[in-house]
């Protein structure tokens, strides 16, 4: 009985030591920075954001040169976050003269993107909504009285230019004009992606992205076509072999090289 009692104590201490060793291993690993706590956890506000994935539904982006101002997105939107105006260009085609997206209303549902007939509206992976942040400088805060103010593309370009400079260096006229269009304390967060490409870099980036997607689509289509062709060829070969079996004296044809593409 005493031996059993001693054995119980031994077992208890043994299990205790194993448990303590397990947690100590984790502790030492993490303190030494090799265990992954710092590797896994992203310090987002202090460090730049890491792109989470390609399919993240971030800010909306409208390519103004394709947009036909059909209001399909406006009708699809459950929260009415679009404000848009259209005008006829020289070829009598509709184009957007104003395309504001109120990101303080947007719920990032993506229904407008589905509704868009020309694929001009898309969702980017951007998600930062701090208008004071350099990385998100095409977002502005507006108050309710400024919300109806009409801005043309040159105005937006001017605004983007002014906002990216320190306020102290602006002239009084610029400062007044800026104050009349945006209000840092306003409750509406406006993403003005709709007014075209603001910088050459943005345009190049968007173009490259579109080109890459087009090529990917083409490559996928080509691969699918090749696969289909291979299947058909295999079926034809099978038929041929069956025919050969019926006439055993005929020579066997060599299979074409790379026929196993599927």
């Amino acid at each position, binding site marked *: 009985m005493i*031996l059993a009692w001693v054995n119980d104590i031994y077992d208890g201490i043994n299990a205790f030591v*194993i448990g303590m060793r397990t*947690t100590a291993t*984790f*502790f030492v690993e993490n303190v030494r920075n090799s265990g*992954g706590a710092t590797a896994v956890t992203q310090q987002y506000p202090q460090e730049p954001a890491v*792109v989470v994935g390609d399919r993240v539904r971030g800010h909306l982006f409208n390519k103004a040169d394709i947009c036909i101002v059909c209001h399909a997105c406006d009708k699809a939107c459950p929260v009415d976050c679009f404000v848009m105006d259209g005008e006829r260009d020289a070829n009598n085609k509709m184009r957007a003269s104003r395309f504001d997206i109120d990101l303080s209303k947007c719920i990032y549902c993506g229904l407008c993107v589905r509704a868009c007939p020309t694929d001009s509206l898309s969702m980017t992976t951007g998600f930062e909504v701090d208008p004071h942040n350099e990385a998100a400088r095409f977002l502005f805060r507006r108050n309710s009285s400024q919300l109806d103010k009409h801005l043309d593309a040159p105005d937006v370009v001017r605004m983007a230019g002014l906002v990216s400079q320190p306020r102290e260096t602006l002239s009084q006229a610029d400062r007044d004009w800026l104050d009349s269009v945006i209000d*840092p304390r306003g409750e509406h967060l406006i993403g003005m992606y709709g007014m075209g490409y603001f910088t050459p870099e943005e345009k190049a980036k968007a173009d490259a992205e579109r080109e890459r997607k087009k090529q990917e689509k083409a490559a996928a289509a080509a691969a699918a076509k090749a696969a289909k062709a291979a299947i058909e060829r295999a079926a034809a070969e099978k038929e041929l072999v069956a025919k050969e079996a019926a006439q055993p004296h005929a020579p066997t044809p060599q299979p074409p090289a790379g026929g196993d593409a599927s």
Partner: protein
Amino acid sequence: MNLGPAVDAVASWFSGPDPAWWAVGIAIVLVWIIPVMAVVFPIAAIGQIIERKVAAAMQRRLGPNTVGVDGIVRLVVRLSLPFLSRVSQDRLIQRISTLPGMGLIRALGLGQLAADGVKMIGKEDIIPAGTDGAVFRLAPYLALAGAFLPFAVIPFAQNIVALEVPVGALYAIAVGGFTVMALLMAGWGSGNKFSLLGGMRAVSQVVSYEIPVGLAIAGVVLWCGTMDLHAIVAQQYNASWASFLGWNICQSPFLALLAGILFFAGLAECQRTPFDMSEADSELVSGFNTEYSGLRWGMFAMAEYTEMCLVGAILATLFLGGYQSPIGEPWIMSLPAWLETIIHVGILLAKFTAVVVLMVWIRWTLPRFRVDQVMRLCWLTLVPLCLIALFGLALTMLLAGGAALGPAYGRLPAMLHLTLSPLGHALAWGIPLAIGTTLVVQARRNRVQAHPVLQQLTTYQPATADVAAIQPNRGSP
């Protein structure tokens, strides 16, 4: 029911030979406890940060690392400079929070302390309708008092002890018993079944574990021949060892065993995780403190961490040489008095912080016991072990003399005297260890083989973590 005789007895006890001695005593305690609280309170608060950081490190998290001083700065700037625009406020906040050193404060989570305090003070103090008013309101204060009052007799340095009483060890046990009362009051006063269950569990557990605690302290008292904690600390300094070898925990294997028992029993008295049935969140919502909110809940939390510190302090004082350094005292004695005091306080704080870290480590390792398991551990393991250790200790003292008894007392020649000769020391360790090892070997040899599945479970080895598998591709576009 006639309470007359009882009241008379209490009154006559208080108005003994010197009618006001107890009032004077309380006044001294209250005056002297303030500097002690000024030291212990921040340590107890930092205990929470230690808890959260250690837990995070064991779970591959970072723990509190966001609320730096910049959080406080943000609050102050936003509230005190409303005439500035939001942008200017942001710039000012950023300017201050990027000063050198702020990153470290943020990474250590120190700002969390102030933020938690502000949060708890700002919260509503809800007192539900069904509560027993006075009992409910009084319980947190009692819990905090029970956790803090024993610190009055802990010597922090040679001259820093709030209350130098000759029965310090007894005082610590007695005043520490307040906590049981507080838990029962909280459980009863809440008018809630879960709280009442938690309170009753707490009482049964704490009262049971008072016995191993008392026996372990009795062992030290037996060894040192005094209940004065200051004298116990002084006795652990021995010129012939002049190092940690003079500490009680190194004097005899029985004292080391008692130290272990005191640690685990203290863990149970703190209601910490392997023993936290009183607030078992998966069974009793939050047990005795379910109905508490705001600062009252904060006082319970504070009491918990203070009690951890208390167990650490008592363990350090009784077994780990108190405020003495592990490499001898002469180098400290040669320093100026104020520096000596600071170093002594620092050493004691380091010792009991180490015990607190060990408690936290255990909390994040072991799951909660069942009620019957807790009781079985106390009555069938710790109490018999305590008795065995006490018996062995008495035998050792009878044969070779203890710290309190001179060499003349021992039945063996002075050459084998424990505190004087290395040979005696080696024998005092060697013989009990040999007997214990023999017992364990025999027990292992004669044990009933466990079920294969259980064997596999108890011999489980954790696989080393595959770090590469969880590394995200950082910085990819």
